[in-house]
């Protein structure tokens, strides 16, 4: 039996609005095996969160719509499932940690109730048993079980995020989607939460999709990385390949934009220009208006994946031999 948990093929998600169609996700492919973590990296508006919501079929409709593509969970296609079956998958087989722990929790329910709510829906347990399990989940994430009767406002940001993680893990999901789980937290708390997620993932052999804009976080927890730009995955590789040999000009640009702690640089090398307007994406390669190597060819032709090393795919004409890079990539 294959080890594959999630497989996305050629996913397209659009938001249809009066001002135009927002092409949020354009032909995304990805696979995640059991126990493996894939980092999905990109800037605001790259389509990371929409991809994640697509996996849960939670893209707000209208205006959002999955136009094309297939999503398989353990070999089962989920896009055709009726809504009530899908509901049994959410929170059970696949669960999600949202970015902002302050707004992800219900302020008028105790954290214990919020955790046991998930358990009661998916497992045949009584109220009491579910609450006991909720307490155990709290302890698992490092909060004393006795605090299950407290309300979210009585917890700090880091502890709220732990509660959110406890809810997400309550039914032992096969896939955990974490959308910027530590962005709202301070670095020392971020380190604690990342460590916790890493430990739990190893303990339960959970597959994880980690959405982030922080390449530092990726280096800490991921096995594979997908770099997303304007709704497409422009580079996809094992983590070692990405950090040793970042190949897409956009990926290079991202690395050049981060102040490095170990090296001295006088000036950062930012990517010129801005993210494209998603209602009016550029033709050809979507990165060409910002790319230092772009030629006429890039304007007209959309690049496909080129495998430059085993499991290292890049969408760029430089690697198909159609475009000569200007100087170093």
């Amino acid at each position, binding site marked *: 039996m294959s080890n594959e948990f999630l497989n996305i093929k050629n996913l397209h998600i659009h938001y249809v609005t009066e001002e135009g169609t927002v092409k949020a996700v354009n032909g995304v492919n990805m696979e995640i095996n059991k126990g493996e973590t894939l980092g999905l990296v990109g*800037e605001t508006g790259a389509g990371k969160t929409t991809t994640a919501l697509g996996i849960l079929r939670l893209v707000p409709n209208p205006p959002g719509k999955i136009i094309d593509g297939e999503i398989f969970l353990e070999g089962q296609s989920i896009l055709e499932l009726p809504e009530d079956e899908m509901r049994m998958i959410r929170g059970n087989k696949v669960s999600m940690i949202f970015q902002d722990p302050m707004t992800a929790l219900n302020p008028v329910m105790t954290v214990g109730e919020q955790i046991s709510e998930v358990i009661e829906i998916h497992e045949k347990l009584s109220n009491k048993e579910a609450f006991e399990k909720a307490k155990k989940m709290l302890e698992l994430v490092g909060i004393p079980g006795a605090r299950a009767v407290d309300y979210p406002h009585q917890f700090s940001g880091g502890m709220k995020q732990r509660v959110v993680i406890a809810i997400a893990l309550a039914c032992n999901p096969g896939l955990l989607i974490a959308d910027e789980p530590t962005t709202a937290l*301070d670095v020392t708390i971020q380190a604690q939460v*990342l460590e916790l997620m890493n430990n739990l993932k190893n303990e339960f052999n959970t597959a994880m999709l980690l959405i982030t804009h*922080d390449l530092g976080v990726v*280096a800490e927890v991921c096995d594979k990385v997908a770099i997303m730009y304007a709704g497409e995955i422009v580079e996809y590789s094992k983590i070692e390949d990405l*950090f040793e040999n970042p190949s897409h000009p956009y990926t290079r640009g*991202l690395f050049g934009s981060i*102040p490095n702690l170990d090296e001295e640089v006088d000036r*950062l090398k930012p990517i010129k220009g801005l993210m494209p307007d998603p209602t009016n994406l550029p033709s050809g390669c979507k990165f060409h208006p910002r790319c230092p190597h772009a030629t006429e060819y890039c304007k007209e032709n959309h690049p496909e994946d080129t495998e430059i090393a085993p499991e290292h795919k890049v969408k760029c004409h430089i690697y198909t031999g159609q475009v000569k890079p200007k100087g170093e990539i």
Partner: protein
Amino acid sequence: MEPILQVKDLKKYFNTPKGLLHAVDGVTFNIDKGETLGVVGESGCGKSTLGRVILHLLESTDGQIIYEGEDITKINKDKFRELRNEMQIIFQDPFSSLNPRMTVSEIIREPIIIHKTIKDKKEIEKKVSSLMDTVGLAERLANTYPHELDGGRRQRIGIARALALNPSFIVCDEPVSALDVSIQAQVLNLMQDLQKELNLTYMFITHDLSVVKHISNDILVMYLGQLVEKSDAKDLFKNPLHPYTKALLSAIPVPSLKHKRERVLLKGELTSPINPKPGCRFAQRCVYAKENCHHDNPVIEEVLPGHFVSCHYVREINNLK
């Protein structure tokens, strides 16, 4: 070099229903002209309050602020206005710090009109367009509204507005935290260019340690309203001495696989700065804490040349004489 700003034992307490909140508690430092002082710490450590107290956006409770040799701790309204020509601030959130009903040029023009630094209308327009040019905003954006622009451009408006009165000292309160990395790098480069060109002095408040290292000459590390360590930026990252700084630096996720560092994982979280008990405020989370740390206040001292630390056991921990 002459320090442009001297801060001595500055305190800011807030009255809250639960007691006295010690937001800034006895902070002392200098900034030299044309330099950048980075202020780092986690949320709630008082770094933003410190910046605001210096600018008189909040009144200090105790201590002294000396700007260009002049004591400005207590000032009247006229002096306050005068100071605005000298000291300015760039805010964190370019989404809420700009008036949504004013156009870009109106926002940049406003300080000039209020302070009447330029009277002639044509001259004002000239100044506004030269400011827009300085910060890299295209002329055609002059009549657009902030909501039409992206975060990076909005932050450029905030910078242009801060520069409108030709200040020499600018408090930058998390100016790039709300921006994407590629845009963040553009804005950081702009700020560095402006500093060189206009000989500006920055107090750069941020929680992002890689940014602060990149831009600062000196760095202050704050913890619960107090200064725990102060040193040259390179030195601080190479050789952090305070246990909190060590933990803070080791917690930064590094975008590289080669430099895996030893991580000091902190237990617990920030304690409350309301009615703090005597003793080192970091003691509860500190792995080196001994009995006396919980009731004796540590004093900040120069442990190595130019490197100040506030810790009872800094020498033992770091094997210094």
